[in-house]
């Protein structure tokens, strides 16, 4: 990934959903700060994992990149071209290069269209006529994603969840994109099917050189799939690093807590320290001041409440490993009593 010019460059990306209230004239009384100042880059052919708890703004980020949502602030640059506020016509040439795979394979396929029509749709919209005709291309795509090309005339309701997700992948591939935003592509699937679909995506990524923004809440799958991982908490990236770096040497307390929650697959594994986060994620309508994680952090001090930590390369980090914490974790440090933050939870 020795690319000086990243494929996708996101800086200061913000999305606030206004809350309307009042009668009879509705006014904006507040905002859900779903995404608040994200900075990250995706290089060509690279897979960036985006992890975090429910409601931390992962899906919103995905929808902002694909421009299904209009950003409130910040900048999205695709190959040097600013697409932050581009309208449908301006986006047209880029549409075919950024595609999306959706979470729910039961909702993402039109029940009234045949598989052939669904997969050929993107080509029709963008007026692409591949050599040998669209139908041939669709059959080819179905084969790539591991479906029987004979299923061309079937309807989505005749397929299982995993097969449907493969159709979704085929649709995303139809335009030969450079970047695919995969919004929790496997979380709605059976565990046994998840691996198949992830491996399919991996094959697609390697063979076709497509960059991925892979949104997930399953750390194991992200580890399997993504070269770089960004951890989000309440609309902000708290840590971003290369895969090995992040999993071996998490510097942000939140990352550490998340990783400690991943179950061990081997029986002989030594019992690890388990960090239990207490309380709920605060409301994005009224996020905590300073560091957003401070309400659940066992290390929080007054500094954390007054000063938002910038996303920087912390001491002892490899280049490219950025952490937003005033007191980054140190590897193998003896964990402090980590449940003491909330007296209720101790009971």
């Amino acid at each position, binding site marked *: 990934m020795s690319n000086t010019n990243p494929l996708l460059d996101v800086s200061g990306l913000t999305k606030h959903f206004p809350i309307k209230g009042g009668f009879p004239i509705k006014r904006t009384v507040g905002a859900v700060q779903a995404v608040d100042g994200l900075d990250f880059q995706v290089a060509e052919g690279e897979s960036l994992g985006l992890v975090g708890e429910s409601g931390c703004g992962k899906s919103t980020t995905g929808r902002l990149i694909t421009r299904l949502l209009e950003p409130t602030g910040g900048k999205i640059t695709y190959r040097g071209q600013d697409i932050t506020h581009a309208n449908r016509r301006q986006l047209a040439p880029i549409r075919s290069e*950024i595609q999306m795979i959706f979470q729910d394979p039961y*909702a993402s396929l039109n029940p009234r269209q045949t598989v052939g029509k669904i997969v050929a749709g993107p080509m029709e919209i963008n007026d692409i006529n591949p050599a040998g005709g669209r139908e041939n291309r669709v059959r080819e795509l179905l084969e790539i994603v591991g479906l029987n090309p004979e299923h061309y005339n079937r*309807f989505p309701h005749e397929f299982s969840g995993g097969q449907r997700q493969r159709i979704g992948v085929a649709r995303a591939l139809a335009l030969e994109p450079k970047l695919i935003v995969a919004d929790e592509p496997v979380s709605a699937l059976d565990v046994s099917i998840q691996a198949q679909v992830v491996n399919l995506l991996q094959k697609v990524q390697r063979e076709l050189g497509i960059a991925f923004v892979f949104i997930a809440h399953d750390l194991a799958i992200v580890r399997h799939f993504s070269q770089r991982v960004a951890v989000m908490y309440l609309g902000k990236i708290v840590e971003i690093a290369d895969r090995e770096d992040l999993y071996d040497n998490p510097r942000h307390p939140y990352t550490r807590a998340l990783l400690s929650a991943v179950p061990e697959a081997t029986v002989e594994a030594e019992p690890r320290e388990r960090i239990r986060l207490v309380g709920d994620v605060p409301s994005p309508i009224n996020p905590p001041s300073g560091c957003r994680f401070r309400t659940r952090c066992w290390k929080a001090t007054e500094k954390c409440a007054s000063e938002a930590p910038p996303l920087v390369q912390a001491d002892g980090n490899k280049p490219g490993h950025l952490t937003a914490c005033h007191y980054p974790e140190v590897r193998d440090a003896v964990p402090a009593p980590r449940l003491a933050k909330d007296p209720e939870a101790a009971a």
Partner: protein
Amino acid sequence: MTPPTPSAAAPLEVTDETEKKSITSDGSKGSESRSPGRLAWKRFKRDRTGVISAYVVIFFFVIGIAAPLIAKLYGKNPYTTYTTQHPELLNAFSYPAGPNGGMSSEFWFGIEPQLGRDVFTFLLYAIRNSLGIATAAALLTTVLGVVIGVTAGYLGGKTDYLVSRIIDILLSFPSTLFFIAFMPVVFGFFVAPDDNIPTSLRATALILVLSAFGWASIARLLRGQVLGLREREFVEAAKVTGASPMRVVFKELLPNLWTPIIIQSTLLLPAFVTAEAGLAFLGVGMIDPTPDWGVMIGRGAQFYTEDITFMLFPGISMVIFVLAFNLLGDSVRDALDPKSKR
């Protein structure tokens, strides 16, 4: 919006056999896909009530369309007063002289009291006119409702708010009262008060007024459906690939809306048949001598103490038609939307 018609349906008596046959034929051509429409058609064919109702409804429509032909073969028309040439057909009190309203081999359904018109052809043309007006009104209503409802639901925001309030107001209107009060006003727009109102104008005005009040319920239903559908991921998927709003509406949303549209319009048509007849009965719709179900029933109501036969033919035929069409609508709904089973 034409309701599925079982024109090619297998004979009813052999349902079991045909089912077995269809299964085997399905197996032989396995690549043939089962589209949602085909599945619905299969379910519909299994529903006896629906199939019989469909036959009845088709029968009525065929009669309506073929009315001039049948009248020609029969050799009479609905306007001639046959008693001027044959005064012996009526008795001293101007009621049919023969038994059962004067039913005979010459006048199959008897003759009308007083004027002596032929009931059979009058009924044929009444069915023709009533169904024509009701069908036109139902079509126009559906088109209006779909366009307005889908637009409001898809655009949302202020458009949706405005349209929803208009729908609220329309639905809170006492429409029958409004028809009675408003029909003369509508005629007044086009014709000077003393002139005769041409039949075509009456029909057009009826269709317009019925549609103007009918679209609101369909529009509200579709608005709700679109509100739900437009947030679905397949719509987002289409948008990600750069689909225009037009394409999203016509290719992604509309195919998913056919079910409620078909169901609503099949239930709407019989309602319009009765509404139109009601208006004619009250004297604000079609009027004598234009053949019409409501006109016939209105005339029959004048004589029913002496000559019930004249009342029976339009009354029973209308009940059969409306009942069959409503049952058909129910069956269509069950076939298209199997989850909504009673």
